[in-house]
């Protein structure tokens, strides 16, 4: 029984040699901006870490208001390496969103969404929103004071949207208030609904990337080298992933994720409640908006503006067409992107310092 016999057995049934040939042909362009190519794979790797640690946590977690907190405490204290798995899950979530943002902004500024990659971009924006939903729903699951109030405030904000707000709020909360029903619902979203949707969209996204190959920015089109994906680029990816594992383990041991105190729906909200960092810039902006703008409620205007910005993300490839025809548009979009990045960064920092 040699390796070749196994290979030919598999090939006859699964056509793996065709896959193997495709893999051999896969190439990555090399130029000054190639470093950004790592971030998509890194995001995917961190997502896999989330799935693995998430499934492990599922073996012990209990999604009810009476048991959730105690079950997480149980994982942290009784289960062997439970502290490690749980802290990695929490840290990796944040790291993934960070790399996701970097990936998205790099694609944006390099205009990688240009034809024919518009659908890749749209699927990516969907993945952005799915990840944010993952973060928001997962945050509530330990059922501690901080997450209870963060969820209360977050769903409250959703409820402010005109017309559909009330329905959205009730849909999210599973009722009018944040209760055990909210917890169970968020759990269902977090472990079933969102993973199913994510699988579909990640599959689509990655498939399209294989189909179209990596985009090369206009200025390097005439002058770039190429590297084979297997084994060269892949091994570089691997080094990055190994370093990511190291970072996660370090964070888990040096800055273990806190559990805090169990949520008490009747206690007053603790002072200085803040959402997770990837929501912070929106939270901080809403604080600065005046109560009333003309005849409209300031908060509603703020939320609607953010929603419109989010929606605008979807159509970026369709308005920012090829610079050959619309050269000035490229600069406008770069400036807009720069402003957005700056805004997010500054507001996040202010949110932390406040």
């Amino acid at each position: 029984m040699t390796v070749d016999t196994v290979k030919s057995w598999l090939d006859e049934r699964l056509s793996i040699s065709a896959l193997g040939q495709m893999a051999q042909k896969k190439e990555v362009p090399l130029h000054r901006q190639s470093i950004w190519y790592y971030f998509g794979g890194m995001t995917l790797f961190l997502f896999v870490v989330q799935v693995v640690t998430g499934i492990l946590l599922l073996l012990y977690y209990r999604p009810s208001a009476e048991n959730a907190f105690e079950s997480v405490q149980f994982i942290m204290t009784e289960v062997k390496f439970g502290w490690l798995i749980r802290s990695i899950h929490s840290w990796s979530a944040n790291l993934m969103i960070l790399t996701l943002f970097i990936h998205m902004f790099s694609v944006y500024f390099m205009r990688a969404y240009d034809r024919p990659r518009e659908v890749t971009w749209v699927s990516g924006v969907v993945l952005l929103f799915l990840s944010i939903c993952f973060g928001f729903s997962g945050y509530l699951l330990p059922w501690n004071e901080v997450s209870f109030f963060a969820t209360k405030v977050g769903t409250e904000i959703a409820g402010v949207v005109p017309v559909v707000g009330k329905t959205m709020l009730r849909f999210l909360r599973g009722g009018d208030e944040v209760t055990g029903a909210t917890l169970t619902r968020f759990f269902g979203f977090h472990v079933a609904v969102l993973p199913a949707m994510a699988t579909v969209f990640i599959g689509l996204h990655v498939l399209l990337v294989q189909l179209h190959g990596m985009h090369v920015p206009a200025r390097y089109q005439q002058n770039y080298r190429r590297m084979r994906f297997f084994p060269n680029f892949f091994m570089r990816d691997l080094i990055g992933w190994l370093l990511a594992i190291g970072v996660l383990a370090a964070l888990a041991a040096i800055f273990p994720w806190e559990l805090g105190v169990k949520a008490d729906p009747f206690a007053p909200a603790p002072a200085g409640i803040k959402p997770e960092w990837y929501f912070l810039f929106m939270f901080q902006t809403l604080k600065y908006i005046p109560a009333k703008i003309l005849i409209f409620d300031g908060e509603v205007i703020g939320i609607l503006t953010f929603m419109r910005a989010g929606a605008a993300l979807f159509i970026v490839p369709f308005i920012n067409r090829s610079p050959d025809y619309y050269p000035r548009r490229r600069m406008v979009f770069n400036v807009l992107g720069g402003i957005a990045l700056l805004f997010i960064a500054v507001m996040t920092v202010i949110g932390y310092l406040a």
Partner: protein
Amino acid sequence: MSNITAGKAAGAPPDRSVELTTRRRFLDYLLGTSALATLAAIVYPIIRFMAPPHIVEAMQNSVVAAKLSELPPNSAKIFKFGSKPGILIRTASGELKAFSAVCTHLDCIVQYRPETKQIWCACHNGQYNLNGENIGGPPPRPLEPYPVNKRGDDIVVNRA
């Protein structure tokens, strides 16, 4: 990060192919073993994680407080229920009763007195009957009762 030299200049260098081969094999060997070691270091915690821990449940909803064979009639035992003390009493007639052992007056741990067949708190002379009801002294409320069941020789106390 990429090292893409097109090739060495002409002027043949000495043949280092044997040296290179052994180095390569050594590198491959190191790579293989350390990859395996790292994989083991990742898989080992996962396997340990999945193995059921010593205490199987978070809530500690029930606990084996004592063994029937070790608890004679008209005696009691203090046991740990989560992080709070409980008292398990086997009455003179053989009945099993369990209560929270935290005195409702000032949180001292109560005890059973076989002479008076009452639960007693030494701190301020509080007395409870065998239903946990406060019948004398300062305690303002009865002791919280717990349901008791037998499982073979084990006496299992549950949270209410």
